[in-house]
């Protein structure tokens, strides 16, 4: 970015005057850096209206970051590769810097937002620095529960869906049951599940599995049912057995549908995960949130929310990666 076209133009023998576009890019990076510097200065020098820790550390980190951005704006021309990478993010970095200034002013400095419900940025830093073992433990517990429930539900839903699409007798018995139970929010089972299962952990796996399983089953079923019958004709004339028709024709053809179901199931299962953790399971981010609220530690709540959003987004990303790998024969419609 920045003065990066200097090199190119100089090599062409033209005078080293950066283009207007280059100047704008450099200015953007410098502005973003300045915003972060201002944030650092405000954080460090303006006395807080209350008691919050880790202000100086945050000021140092953001100050260093702002300085680095300004340097990138000034000298990015000498490192075109790095500059090209940074350039993508400068508008966001500028916006974030401004939002952080606003956040800092309205909370710690001017106390315009009601306290203690809106802690300042360095209060969150304090949580991450001081309470990370507990947060980490919660993330691990949540991911474990989520994955166990999701996998159980996905496998069960997939099997039910394929069987519904393939076997009339299976459909006769299972379809009515699925119509009755499927659309109901799984959370409604919560009071029963917690005493019907040996532990709240296994009860939660059941609830998450139920939530995931329903959309996976319906979409897999519709996927298998909508397979072009010409595919079966082709396979049959080539000598395909029944098993071949199921595993090599119906299932691969239905896979795009299955993934829609998996995405719906995963999204819905997060809600059940958090609820189950708040209601019964004494571990995980949902539990952490509730525990923090009980102690009125609002900074911990925001920190946990941030971690939770990263976790959910990360799991969705993993599912997208899996889809891109398994369905590489399709032209990808959505880039996550």
């Amino acid at each position, binding site marked *: 970015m920045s003065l990066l076209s200097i090199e190119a133009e100089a090599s062409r023998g033209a005078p080293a005057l950066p283009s207007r576009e280059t100047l704008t890019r450099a200015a953007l990076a410098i502005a973003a850096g300045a915003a972060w510097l201002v944030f650092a200065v405000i954080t460090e020098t303006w006395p807080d209206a209350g008691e919050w820790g880790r202000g100086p550390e945050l000021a140092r980190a953001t100050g260093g970051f702002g300085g680095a951005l300004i340097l990138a704006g000034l000298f990015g021309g000498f490192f075109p590769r790095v500059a090209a990478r940074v350039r993508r993010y400068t508008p966001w970095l500028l916006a974030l810097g401004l939002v952080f200034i606003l956040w800092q002013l309205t909370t710690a400095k001017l106390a315009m937002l009601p306290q203690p419900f809106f802690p300042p940025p360095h209060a969150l830093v304090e949580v991450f620095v001081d309470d990370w073992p507990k947060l980490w433990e919660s993330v691990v517990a949540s991911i474990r529960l989520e994955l166990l429930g999701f996998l159980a539900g996905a496998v069960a839903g997939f099997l039910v869906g394929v069987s519904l699409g393939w076997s009339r007798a299976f459909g006769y018995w299972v379809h009515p049951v699925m119509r009755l139970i499927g659309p109901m929010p799984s959370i409604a089972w919560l009071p029963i599940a917690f005493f019907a299962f040996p532990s709240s952990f296994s009860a939660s796996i059941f609830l998450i599995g139920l939530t995931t399983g329903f959309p996976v089953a319906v979409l897999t079923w519709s996927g298998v049912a909508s397979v*072009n019958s*010409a*595919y079966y*004709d*082709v*396979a*049959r*004339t*080539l*000598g*395909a*057995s029944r098993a*071949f028709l199921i595993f*090599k*024709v119906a299932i*691969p*053809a239905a*896979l795009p549908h299955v993934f829609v179901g998996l995405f719906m199931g995963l999204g819905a299962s997060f809600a059940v995960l958090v609820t189950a953790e708040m209601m019964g399971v004494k571990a995980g981010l949902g539990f952490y949130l509730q525990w923090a609220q009980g102690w009125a530690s609002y900074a911990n709540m925001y920190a946990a929310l941030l971690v939770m959003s990263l976790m959910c987004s990360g799991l969705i990303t993993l599912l997208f990666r899996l889809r891109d790998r398994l*369905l590489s*024969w*399709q*032209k990808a419609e959505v880039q996550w």
Partner: protein
Amino acid sequence: MVSLAHKISIAPGPSKVPGVEIAIKDVSHRFDLEGAPLPVLDRVNFTAQRGEFVALLGPSGCGKSTLLRLVAGLEPPTQGAITSNGALIAGPDPSRVVVFQDPTLFPWRNVRDNVALGLEAQGLLKQRGARIDETLALVGLEAFAKAFPHQLSGGMAQRVALARALVNDPELLILDEPLGKLDSLTRLSMQGEIVNLWRRSGFTVLLVTHDVEEALLMATRVIVFSERPATIKADIAIDQPYPRHRDDPDLVAQRRNILGLLGLDGSW
């Protein structure tokens, strides 16, 4: 396309397989449309000799494609019997393969894996896997082995479908308007390719088409069907040597004759 035809003449040919005799005996067929039976075939009788290339011509929707499905064993006829070398056809068999109007390649398999489909389904991949690349070369697509169907043109996709059929060394090749959706240039070159393949291998061919010229250029025998329910209107032997030319006076006369049978003598 010219270079492709050349390629076919030097590529290793399909293994020499004896064609089968297909006898269609008094076959009638009905569809059940919302409770009302719809007759599509009415007492059809003919026998395709070993190695014969029989074209079935008829107006659109007359039931010729249905007849092919019955011969392929995809459905049993309502009445009558179809035999292959005297044995009753009771279900699909890889010795009788179909090329449909749509290539119906499996989009999740690349070209090579699509061609491998039949051998894989029959558990012959290990023994006869080498045939896959041979057959791909035969249709001039060895360079596209790793391509996926959505990357192919219509003509290329139909060539893959042809290779997918030929790799099984069929005794009967059933062609259900395989060139119907191709552009006219691709169509012409593929007509020649199919005839070459058939002449070099010896299988029996049943071709459904509603292109009179295509039938006359390719087949040794043309059977003309009536409107639905289809009955046989005419059974014409075409004794011209190959390669045939569309301007050949005998073929032009035959075309006029057949168009007349189809009720189109006024046109063209």
